[in-house]
């Protein structure tokens, strides 16, 4: 465990911050721009995983295991969430025969 902590600390904290912000932004832009729903769900996962990376880095720098426990909770909840999301997608596929965002156009102001 201590080896891993020191291995993580080899890279400066700022680099982890920048990397995870980059990943987060890529995920965010992807979720807003892409039209294929499967890719949008992948982008959402990317956002969550960038947070995981950040938490592990902070956890190593603070020498506090709490952050790594949080990572497990996030992975678990993300799995539950994506299960629900994909099953809703299957339901929509059955009713409309497509996985493109443009089918989401029945509710408008």
């Amino acid at each position, binding site marked *: 465990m201590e080896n891993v902590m020191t291995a993580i600390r080899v890279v400066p904290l700022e680099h982890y911050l920048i990397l995870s912000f980059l990943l987060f932004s890529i995920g965010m832009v992807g979720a807003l721009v892409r039209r294929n729903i499967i890719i949008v769900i992948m982008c959402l996962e990317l*956002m*969550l995983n*960038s947070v995981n990376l*950040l938490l592990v880095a902070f956890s190593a720098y*603070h020498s*506090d295991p*709490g952050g790594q426990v949080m990572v497990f909770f996030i992975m678990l909840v993300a799995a539950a969430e994506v299960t629900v999301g994909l099953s*809703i997608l299957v339901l*929509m596929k059955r009713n409309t025969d497509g996985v493109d965002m443009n089918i989401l156009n029945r509710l408008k102001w």
Partner: protein
Amino acid sequence: MSALILISVLAVLVLYLGLFGNKSWLAPIGVLGLLGAIALFASGWHIDHHLMGGMVKFDRFSIGFNIAMVAITVLIFLFGPDYYARAKDNVAEQYALMLFSLVGGFLLSSYTNLLMLFLGIEVLSIPLYILAGAKKNSLRSNEASFKYFLLGSFSTAFLLMGIALLYGLTGSFELTVLGEHIANAGSSDMLLNFGLFFTVTGLAFKMGAVPFHFWKPDVYQGAPTLVTIFMATVVMMAATAGFFRLIDVTGMPGMLAQIMVLLVLATLLVGNVIALRQTNFKRLMAYSSIAHSGFLLLALLTDEGLVEGHGTAVGRTLLYYTFTYSLATTGLFILFTIAKRANNGAEHNDIFRGLFAAKPWLALCALAMLLSLAGIPLTAGFIAKYQVFLLAIGAGWLKVMGFGVLMALLGIYYYFMVVRELFVRPDQPVTFVVSPLNWLVVSVCAVAVLVLGVWPSLI
């Protein structure tokens, strides 16, 4: 703790009963369990309970909110048998998912640790994604469910980013550590500002504050009405309570005050102005709920964090506001379902036409609830808004409060569009079919709104 376990076990029990295909027992058992939970919460009123290694604290604020949430769920469950009378299957699952979601609400109103904030929000939301799509063959329901899922997970990612940054700042998920850090080290740190910004963004999504409100009208319109009631009431209360828990520790350090002011102004303006041109009643209620979350944010804005004694006043106002709002919304949506059935599934505002001629008492109930939402004196909605404005004056946000008063006046207009329909004579006679239980629930909502308006000290 026992109430949390009771509700979770109750949900599993309801799910199990659904296997036997007997719908008629589900709601009574659910109501009994919920009443038991109220009793358990009430018995813990005088002592603060710390659970799960101090991650959850049941104090008076959270117990008050929890009892209010359970009470509204009881009203929704009483409406259930009639609403699901023609549904063939999956009824037990929907009751059970609502109970699971309620457990998330309990966590959200009583967390003292950011980990529990995240879990609470997710336990609250994931059942709701499914519930919004409960009408499996309706495309609109599917779409509502999927939109809610996409924007919900999106906001969760923001919330998590905020939590991670705050963790990086203090090295702990405990809210008290965060509060002490702000008190000692000041509020100039970038990590703190960004962390709070992301966390507040995530929570504002759940409350439906502008500019994070886009899901609300679509989801309210597409979801089954019973689920819409649950989202508009219990979820709104839980999100408000969760927001308050955070703000009550951090206060308004650094940029947060400016961000919150912008949120309040945008939410009040957009919610009230767009509601003016809504003709679909469900969308109208969605924009009304956005407008109300603007007033709730205004109350949250006045919280000064760890300053002793001030947080209780804000917490009490929030409880009173959300509870009375939820009562009026529940009653109105039940009346909406009755009117929708009488008009062959139309959702336009004018389905209420002729209600006064056919059922005078129900029309008067609807009038009381609409007046309460609009904030006319002698109803609870007026006292709620009045208390929020008092808090805002006390904290020195005079201009924001003035804007709030203006928007409250604007809001009266669109509620009166519905009030007018109640008393208009219909072109051809309409028959409203009301079951005795629905009549009772609507009457309870309307009378409670009036009683709480005359004697606000009851809460």
